[in-house]
């Protein structure tokens, strides 16, 4: 079998395009920003990066892009440490958006395309293609500063895509987007992953992350504390049951063996079953109060998982 190892990035098989962040650490003075951050993002996967502010998401992305240097650890793409040349092929959207306000749209995108190594003609053509894709063709010769915020966001995304990147790294790409732009962004991320790119993005909008990500990493205090698909993360989470017992006394629900009350909404109560326990004890306790209208399993949302994981990490 022939080896494709020596042909470099452009010849690398899509399946080999894995982004590996390997035990990366970063310190700002006494503050530990990253503490052995490790994760892998295979090609063709939309990867969500969630965590509280200051958890290390932006620092990780900046290190991937080479904007910051890691104190320890390594970032590899397709098995080789990221070089300057490879980094030029990463589509990046920083948390702090930025474009030259007094530069024309088409000119700006073509400029970024050329900076990322495209020839002038190809960069111009790619700029036109993306402007058309985002419905901005008739604004091509307007200055960026004359655009609405929503349109500026579109240009910012186009700026990350214009040079035909090998990977996408997007810091909070959904922040501040209107619902239409959210749909556009989601569609583009999925499309790019389907085209064989590793796509990694951070977000605080957990419902969105749950909906569009293949896999998720939850980071806390500079390292990954849980990762996997949403289904895999759920398997690690406690079982939940919803109980509607309308005749139960006002204080019912507290102190039930093997189940913990999570929330109460009228007569509907949400319980978490203790690990390894049976849910039948909870059902019997509910039936003891009178009729039970509802008793069913509740899938924990990513938000629930997130809070649980962080609590466990703090403990």
């Amino acid at each position: 079998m022939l080896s494709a190892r020596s042909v470099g990035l452009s010849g690398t098989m899509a399946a080999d395009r894995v982004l590996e962040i390997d035990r990366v650490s970063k310190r700002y003075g006494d503050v530990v920003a990253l503490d052995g951050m490790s994760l892998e993002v295979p090609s063709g996967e939309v990867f969500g990066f969630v965590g509280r502010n200051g958890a290390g998401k932006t620092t990780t992305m900046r290190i991937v892009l080479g904007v910051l240097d890691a104190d320890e650890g390594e970032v590899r793409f397709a098995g080789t440490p990221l070089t300057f040349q490879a980094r030029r092929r990463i589509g990046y959207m920083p948390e702090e958006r930025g474009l030259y306000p007094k530069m024309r749209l088409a000119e700006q995108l073509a400029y970024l395309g050329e900076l990322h190594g495209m020839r002038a003609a190809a960069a111009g053509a790619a700029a036109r293609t993306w402007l058309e894709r985002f419905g901005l063709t008739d604004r091509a010769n307007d200055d960026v500063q004359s655009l609405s915020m929503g349109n500026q966001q579109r240009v910012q995304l186009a700026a990350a895509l214009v040079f035909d990147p090998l990977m996408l790294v997007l810091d909070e790409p959904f922040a501040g987007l209107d619902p239409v732009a959210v749909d556009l962004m989601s569609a583009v991320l999925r499309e790019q992953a389907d085209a064989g790119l590793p796509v990694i993005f951070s977000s605080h909008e957990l419902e969105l992350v749950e909906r569009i990500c293949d896999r998720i990493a939850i980071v806390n205090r500079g390292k990954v504390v849980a990762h996997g698909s949403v289904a895999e993360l759920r398997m690690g989470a406690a079982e939940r049951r919803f109980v509607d017992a309308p005749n139960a006394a006002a204080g019912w629900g507290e102190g039930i063996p093997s189940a913990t009350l999570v929330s109460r909404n009228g007569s509907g109560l949400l319980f978490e079953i203790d690990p390894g326990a049976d849910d039948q004890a909870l059902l019997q306790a509910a039936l003891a109060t009178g009729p039970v209208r509802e008793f069913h399993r509740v899938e924990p949302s990513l938000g629930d998982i997130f809070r649980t994981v962080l609590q466990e990490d703090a403990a």
Partner: protein
Amino acid sequence: MSDKTGGRPIIFLVARREIRMRLRSRVFIGGTIVMTALVVVGIVAASLLAGKTTPVRVGFSGGSQGLVSSFTASAAALDANVTVSDIADVTAGEAQVTAGTLDVLVIGSVTAPTAVVKAAIPSNVESALSLAALAARLADAGLSPSAIASAMGLVPVQLLQPPNPKNTQNVFASLVLGILLWIALGQYGNMVAQGVVEEKATRIMEVMLATVPPTRLLAGKVIGIGLVGLLQLTIVGAAALVAVNVTNVAAIPALGVASILGDILWFLLGFLFYATAYAAVASLVSRQEELQGAVAPISVFQIAGYLLMYAALPNPTGTLATVASLFPPFAPIVMAVRMASSDVPPWQVGLAVAFIVASIAGLTWLAGRMYANAALRIGARVRFMDAFRG
């Protein structure tokens, strides 16, 4: 590490963007028009101040015509610019003097001529005429031509301190060029500073630094803006040369081709010096409003250079002017002015160039380091030592 993956080098791309954006701006177009107008007006004013050097028209009538050749020789010896003509009729000649088409009418004989003028006669013309008449009288008294020549010899003058061959108009022209150079250095240095802050303020910096190494982004910016400045100065310089030729003040050395090329060299050196310094301090702040405070230490040097220029002009070979013209922050203006207004020994020019080139190399290293460390620190002003240490 090569820039190229099929496209053009990064420094070229960054510089090209700067040039395109600046050439399109009103500041450049307006600034070029204003500077060109100032220079042309200045040169026209200089040519008027230099005074008309039109020759004095001297007409010789009747018997005095024998004086023409010795008068012309004496006038030349006395630096009097004259034209001579024969006037057939005294009355017609007097009418010409009255009408102003003739300045001096010489009547009478060679040994007893009379000068007829409207109101006054230039003293050197009067002296030349007197010398010519004296020679005629000596010849009349029987002296040989060689005896007359020795008798008429002018007293040689020995100069213990040769005067500045470059005259007052030249000092004025040097001053105007010095001021323009100073304005251009300040303008383009500030343009670099504003460009750096613009990239931080608009947050494009992180997009750029994810693609472009900081030193190349900085180099491209400085080169691009420098070339725009050079273009502007070339336009202004070309307009100056045209104006010089039209107004005939080419005798003013500060407006000669060599001097204007010298000014352009000093602009380039001064620009590289100040632009890198401006870029370094500008990378410490995130907002245009904070920029003035940050660049203040550099402005102090620039203003000091401006004042030293005035101090150097009256005595361009003095100790103060010489020392200031070697010191890199002041050299671009003070040395340029010295070179325009006096003959500076080549070793001093060479030393000044060597000093400033060495300083530019040092500043580039420092600026690259500060810029790389401070460029992404948006928000509060970054302290100098933090940017230096990284």
